[in-house]
């Protein structure tokens, strides 16, 4: 440990592992440390099930007998899916990390309207049959979607007279004559916005997001989402192996006491009596608490079910989105909710996986309900989601603080990632990682450095 590293990465969350992989591939000498004895930090999949019980209820807590073999459970701490055509899938393919992973597409996506669950149409047949919108609205919506596919920010003739720089999404909806319900469905279930702010912003990003949704859907058919077998915890481990292949050194179960500074610049980390020297530090917020600020909270309820979610056609895996507007309105009869009705500004997301995804034993389902915390009673905020799940065998509620760096690292050479937000996909994750990499190396990542994919041994 007396050598000096180009970079020391602290924490093995997905973001840190991607960064570690990218740095090693770029020829940097990397030391990667985690205080836990498992990979993944916040983005780990806990296994066996006993580990989950211990984390939430203490060492005495034990799962029920009928929950099967603990080793068959892989419980994510944050629920996310991959967009089949999104940046993370591209990164996985280009880095060859797909070699270590197997994916399955999520069976269906649902949206809640008027207290009922509707399937988001995945093909023309379903679109024809859906009762999400009326006949005439369908025609207008079709026109809108055709335009979305053609739109090009750089070609004025595709703008339909709406300048993307100063026209809002609301204006687009009006232009195509789409009613509020359709706009709601489009913004939340297709573009995956968590609130309505986008309606008042220039429309190009929203159109791009809708296009990403349909391109992803076109890829594998059933839904636009992919999910790795054995849980999301596989992703950081895949990138960790990539980093190791390019020389990264790995150390789990190693407590880190502090980042050692000299003249305002990080020079290494202190672990017990020893100091490891490194020119740069990359870490998650928990390793640099004095250099981050809290920006909010996310509440997540992990629920173990012994049945699929009702009204989803027994989907073995799915996503359900409850758009903000649908939350207060139809659950108003609950007193707690009545009070917060006005306050709820963010969507509620539900994700569900099961034995087909190798995260539960046969007959068991894992549902996770999450949203951004807006009130003093976070548990009540996920209630509308919990009510859709039917009988819940066991429930774990976690409230996590969301941090972002207050120090961007140009002086200190400490580069800190943001906490994982409430979205159920990885768009923001990839953006943050690329941003960290560029802050740290002042370069963009060069994919041609990846050479191990050809099998020829270079000696």
């Amino acid at each position, binding site marked *: 440990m007396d050598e000096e590293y180009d970079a020391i990465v602290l924490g093995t969350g997905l973001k840190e592992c991607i960064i570690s992989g990218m740095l090693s591939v770029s020829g940097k000498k990397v030391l990667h440390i985690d205080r836990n004895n498992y*990979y993944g930090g916040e983005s780990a999949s806990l296994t066996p099930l006993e580990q989950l019980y211990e984390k939430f209820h203490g060492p005495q807590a034990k799962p029920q007998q009928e929950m099967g073999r603990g080793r068959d459970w892989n419980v994510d701490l944050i629920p996310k899916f991959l967009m089949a055509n999104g940046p993370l899938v591209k990164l996985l*393919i280009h880095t*060859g990390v*797909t*070699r*270590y*992973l*197997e*994916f*399955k*597409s999520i069976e269906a996506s649902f949206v809640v309207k008027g207290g009922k669950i509707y399937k*988001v*149409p*995945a*093909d*023309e*047949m*379903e*679109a*024809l049959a859906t009762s999400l919108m009326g*006949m005439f609205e*369908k*025609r207008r*919506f*079709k026109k809108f*979607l*055709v335009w*979305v*596919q053609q739109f090009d920010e750089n070609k004025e003739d595709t703008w339909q007279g709406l300048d993307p720089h100063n026209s809002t999404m609301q204006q687009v909806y009006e232009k195509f004559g789409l009613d509020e319900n359709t706009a709601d469905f489009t913004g939340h279930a297709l573009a995956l916005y968590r609130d309505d702010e986008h309606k008042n912003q220039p429309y190009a990003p929203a159109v791009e997001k*809708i296009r990403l949704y*349909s391109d992803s*859907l*076109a*890829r*594998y*058919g*059933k839904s636009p989402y992919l999910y790795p*077998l*054995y849980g999301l*915890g*596989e992703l950081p*481990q*895949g990138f*960790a*192996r990539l980093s*190791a*292949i*390019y*020389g990264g*050194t*790995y*150390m*789990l*179960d190693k407590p880190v006491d502090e980042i050692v500074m000299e003249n305002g610049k990080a020079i290494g980390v202190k672990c017990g009596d020893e100091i490891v020297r490194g020119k740069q530090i990359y870490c998650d917020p928990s390793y640099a608490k004095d250099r981050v600020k809290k920006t909010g909270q996310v509440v997540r309820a992990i629920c173990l079910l012994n049945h699929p979610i009702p009204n989803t056609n027994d989907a073995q895996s799915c996503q359900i989105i409850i758009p903000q507007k649908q939350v207060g309105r139809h659950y108003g009869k609950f007193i707690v909710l009545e009070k917060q009705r006005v306050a709820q500004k963010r969507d509620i997301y539900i994700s569900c996986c099961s034995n087909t995804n*190798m995260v539960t034993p046969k007959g068991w389902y894992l549902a996770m309900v999450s949203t951004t915390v807006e009130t003093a009673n976070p548990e009540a905020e996920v209630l509308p989601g919990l009510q859709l799940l039917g009988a819940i065998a066991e429930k774990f509620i976690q409230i996590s603080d969301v941090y972002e760096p207050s120090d961007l690292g140009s002086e200190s050479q400490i580069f800190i990632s943001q906490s994982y937000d409430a979205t159920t996909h990885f768009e923001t994750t990839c953006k943050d990682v690329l941003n960290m990499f560029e802050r740290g190396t002042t370069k963009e990542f060069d994919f041609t450095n990846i050479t*191990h994919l050809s*099998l020829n*041994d*270079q*000696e």
Partner: protein
Amino acid sequence: MSEHHVNIPAPQFSTYATVIDPPKHVTATHPDELTTASHPQPTHPSAPQDPSPAVPSTPVRVPYPTAPPPIPPAPEAVTAGPKKMALAPSSTKTYKQKRTFKVIIVGNAAVGKTCLSFRFCCGRFPEHTEATIGVDFRERSCVIENELLRVQLWDTAGQERYRQSIVAHYYRNVNAVVFVYDVTCRESFNDLALWIKECEKHGLVGDSEVPRILIGNKCDVECTNRVSTDEAQMFADRNNMALFETSAKLASEADHVESIFLTLLHKLQQSKPMHVQSQDERHQKEQERLILKANETENVEEEGFCC
């Protein structure tokens, strides 16, 4: 305007199945496939996994021979010059079926895992090896009974230096495990128990269908405090493993390394493909499961030396 013509195109209808649906077997984790997975192609998943094995449907399996399968000494190998590997596939032939096997090598750092896999896959001893860099796995193709077999020897990528740090997927979809220790390093032998435990934690238990072998490497190195063969043999017996002592470095041992891995390969070749296994089949397999026993290993060693 009839209802018939109202349709919503954007969630495009696609007729193909999920291309990256989980292949049950390592085959599909081969690099090319997932790249193709990103360009969806109609219907068939990945090429190598789908040829539903034309294994003769007779319920009786050919038992694993008590003597090691004869390893045809490739005549080319005898002649000098660039050595052609035994059982190498020819480019023109078409094979009855193709299978890929994932074999992992575990053991302490610096016991020679990389050198052993290099010897087997590349036919020689690597000139400079420090800690392993830049290799995911090494691969070698062999043809046995008109079947193309691809063996992937996976490398720990140096993550064994601090034991707990090997990623979980390393142990997934594994067809065989090779444990390696250094005969001149007592610690590496003592730590084998921990490695076995680590494998069991990931479901690779001793009495499963996944064969395990034990290799004591560096037998060419002179040393006073050597791990004795008897001791190693006892350990191997206790854990249902075949023991081999060899050296990846010594050119005279090259054929021995070759025969060890080919023996393993034969064993794999006779195993049924892991996917689509009915309860009965599994039960049957359980009963027919055969383990390389200690007396076999001696034979193997003799065979190994003489060919």
